[in-house]
């Protein structure tokens, strides 16, 4: 073979990700710990709240080797469980996922947990252990498996099952990886904290290798409404998607395919589109040529009378949950939340939600409020500088106009939920600048800030009223004394004076609209200083 020849061979997806693990977030031992926790926790949450189950999630991290930096990471949930026949592929075959339907969930690419398994295999050689049971199952299933990288196939090392002795359902996943816990710790804690902030309806516990327990107890019983699976909206279509659709379809005609595969396309719309593409409605979908497919895509995308995409596939947190979460996290003096109405970009429905906390234990925002970003209930911790949401908070809102003088203890939480959150890059850590989205984010923040402004101006008014009352109340003892000198007999002077103080206190409280207690407090302080 000469030096100019090259060997081409197919690479299995498992092998590909094994080699390019940085893309999936496993670039180094610090990042690996964080990424493993994150992937497992997100799966645990997707198995619970998406299905209407209040999550109980327990994360345990243990040192797994005395000499080497091996850590066993175990995440337990009380979710819907996984059918035993699915388990091997769900954990052992890259790109096998239930997540190809159109509904909001945390993971998008169906890669996460397999990357964890691969990474564990690569660094410690230890297999993944899975214990799972669905709610109506009588047995609990146990698997120990690894991935055959070359074949992209699961290898079952051990499997078994036993009868349920208690009413348990959910999944326990345990992996052992090499990692740098000491340096990853703060990131993991932050991730858990930020996740818990918007999930006040979840019990989340973390046990660290140092045996510290970090626990966020459930404070509300309200759950976000679960997302409903919907068909894709035609505006979100691309050639790739359409190609795979026509190959795997069970529909006999192009017309039926369109009507049944998309939302917002009925008979009339389907005919118009097909006519515009210059095709035959009765044509078999499998027989479409590449040129015809392209014409069809263009016809579908250029049609402009669709109803907007259905927001049923979304699961916003809701104002009550955001408020409760912020209260639990920051015990703020003021909190408000705004859930915007559904909107859409390029056929993808989205909802922007904004929470705003002020005062209490809210961290201080220096030149702008502290921003907590979430996408589909996942906290975004990195790449803040390039995030559109942060840009809006910093540059598009004049906080002065809302009576906020920075630095101030103020925090803005922005949650974007969508069937397709527009991220910048595969890191999934910052939100891209889409005009429709930017507008909603801005309007949401402004609405929340108006609530804050109302609160602050009321507070200032009340404080001014108190100050005014104070500037009157401090003279009550002197006025009462003077009146009593003139009007009271010497023997009854003290009783007389007290009575005048009491009456004046009432009058001043009534006239200034300030509480009697406050007036009395000031009067008492004057009397105490004067030794009355």
């Amino acid at each position, binding site marked *: 073979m000469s030096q100019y020849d090259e060997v081409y061979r197919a690479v299995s997806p498992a092998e590909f990700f094994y080699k390019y693990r940085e893309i999936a977030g496993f670039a180094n031992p610090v990042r690996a710990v964080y990424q493993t926790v994150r992937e497992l926790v997100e799966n645990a949450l997707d198995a619970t709240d998406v299905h209407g189950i209040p999550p109980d999630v327990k994360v345990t991290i243990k040192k797994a080797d005395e000499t080497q930096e091996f850590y066993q990471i175990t995440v337990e949930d009380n979710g819907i469980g996984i059918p035993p026949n699915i388990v091997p592929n769900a954990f052992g075959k890259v790109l096998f996922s239930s997540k190809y339907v159109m509904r909001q969930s945390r993971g998008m690419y169906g890669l996460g947990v397999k990357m964890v398994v691969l990474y564990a295999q690569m660094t410690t050689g230890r297999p993944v252990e899975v214990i799972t049971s669905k709610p109506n199952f009588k047995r609990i299933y146990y698997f120990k498996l690894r991935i055959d990288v070359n074949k992209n196939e699961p290898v079952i090392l051990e499997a078994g099952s036993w009868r349920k002795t208690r009413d348990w359902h959910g999944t326990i996943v345990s992996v052992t990886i090499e990692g740098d816990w000491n340096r990853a710790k703060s990131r993991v804690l932050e991730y858990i904290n930020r996740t818990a902030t918007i999930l006040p309806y979840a019990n989340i516990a973390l046990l660290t290798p140092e045996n510290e327990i970090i626990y966020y107890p459930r404070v509300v019983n309200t759950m976000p409404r679960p997302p409903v699976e919907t068909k894709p909206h035609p505006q979100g279509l691309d050639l790739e998607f359409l190609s795979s659709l026509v190959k795997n379809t069970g529909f006999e005609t192009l017309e039926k395919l369109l009507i049944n595969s998309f939302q917002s396309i009925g008979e009339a719309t389907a005919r118009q589109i097909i006519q515009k593409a210059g095709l035959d409605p009765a044509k078999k979908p499998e027989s479409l040529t590449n040129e015809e497919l392209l014409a069809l895509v263009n016809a579908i995308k250029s049609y402009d009378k669709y109803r907007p995409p259905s927001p049923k596939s979304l699961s916003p947190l809701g104002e009550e949950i955001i408020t409760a979460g912020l209260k639990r996290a920051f015990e703020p003096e003021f909190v408000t939340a705004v859930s915007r109405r559904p909107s859409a970009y390029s056929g993808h429905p989205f909802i922007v939600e904004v929470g705003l906390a002020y005062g209490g234990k809210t961290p201080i925002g220096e030149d702008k409020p502290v921003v907590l970003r979430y996408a589909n209930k996942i906290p975004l911790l990195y790449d803040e500088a390039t995030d559109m949401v942060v840009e809006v908070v910093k540059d598009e809102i004049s906080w002065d106009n809302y009576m906020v003088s920075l630095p101030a203890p103020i925090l803005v939480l922005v949650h974007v939920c969508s069937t397709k959150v527009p991220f910048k890059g595969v890191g999934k850590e910052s939100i891209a600048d889409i005009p429709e989205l930017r507008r909603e984010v801005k309007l949401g923040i402004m609405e929340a800030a108006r609530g804050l402004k109302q609160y602050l101006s009321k507070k200032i008014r009340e404080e001014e009223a108190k100050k005014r009352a104070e500037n009157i109340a401090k003279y009550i*003892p002197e*006025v009462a004394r003077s009146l009593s*000198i003139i009007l009271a007999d010497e023997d009854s002077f003290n009783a007389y004076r007290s009575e005048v103080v009491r009456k004046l206190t009432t*009058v*001043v409280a009534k006239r200034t609209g300030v509480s009697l207690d406050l007036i009395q407090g000031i009067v008492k302080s004057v009397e105490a*200083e004067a030794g009355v």
Partner: protein
Amino acid sequence: MRQRLGCSGVTSKIDLEARGKALDIVKYSMRELLEQIERGEKPTLIMPKRTLSNTIYDLKHKMLLLGPELQKRSFTDVNEAKKFMQTLLMASIIYEALRNNEYPTIRDLYYRGKHSIVYRSIDGKRVSENTWDEQRESDSVIRDLEVLLSVLREDLLILSKEKGKVVGNLVIRSGDDTIDLSKMGHGAYSIEPTPDLIEFIDVDAEYILVVEKDAVFQQLHRYGFWRKYKAILVTSAGQPDRATRRFVRRLSDELKLPVYILADSDPYGFYIYSVFKAGSITLSYESERLATPSAKFIGVMMTDIFGDSVFKKIIKEREARKTLEEVATGIEDLKPKTPYLSESERSNFIIKAKTKDLERAVELIGYKVADVCMEDKDAKSKIKRKEGLTGYPWFATPHWVRELCIFFNTLSKLEIEAMASKGLKFLADKYIPEKISSGDWID
């Protein structure tokens, strides 16, 4: 009846009665306030407004009076709360002094009421403030109480320094004593700070002469002027205090005698006359009891020094005449005047007017007269900033226009002492009697 009371020692019956009356007035007003509080209303003091805008010149009574505007001072109004407290504090101190038979001065009252109010503010700070800091504040509250209670401070037995003096054929009762003011030797009777407690018993006089300068008063006294011309001789020793003004007013009212004022021939002298006659702007609420509207200015007039030739020359010009007529109609009907001083005496006695004199003169008569009569360009530039002033209404008479016009033209002033220097005999036997008998005064 003599009685020993507290630390004040022997107190006269008149005093006791005055105290009783004052105590009742204070008590009555404060009881009203208490009733408001008991009804749950905001405690409010209602009193005439003591501001320049509410000071009016009453043309009929020819004096400065408080206008009809009322001021409401509510305790629950945050801008008035402190003043309210101060007013009541002052009332209580005055009340205590009255009850204890004391005679506080306004300075005493300032010290008695001055103390700290210390309290803990709503933000937890310990704050200390004084009931009042400067005497200006407590003095202002005393004035408020005077209008609130419609009494003068003298009625509340508040004393001030004695300044005015009087001699003459007059017998008075002061306290429990009877005093013959014609038997004061070389001295004189000091007009007490509470002139309303004086009783006039006997009088043998034809007019009252008030002399601004104490020195001139003494000279006339020793010369025996009052005995010779049956006058009651009074001096205010400069700016008249309240007691002297009230005393003169009572002499005028009760003895029905004409009052003549002899002051320096300068804007200050003219102003002192107007305080006697019409009242002062800052104390306009007292005018009704302190001003003597019938008081006449007999001198020293500018026309006594210069005659009227200067003025005649000025009003020969049509424009000037017209302007001055606008200030006061009748300037051409004024009686002609010849000067008492010769050319050489004038040059010896007159003093050059200062900027302050010029400014005060503009305040009295207005800028127009100055503008028309003044020839000196330097002097004119000095009063330029007073342009637009219209003067006091009670100076807008033909006589005063002539007097001040001559002043502006000659830029000269003259003290009464100068008239005495020409000869005490001239002053006592010629100048004063001649002016009175010929009616050469300004009313």
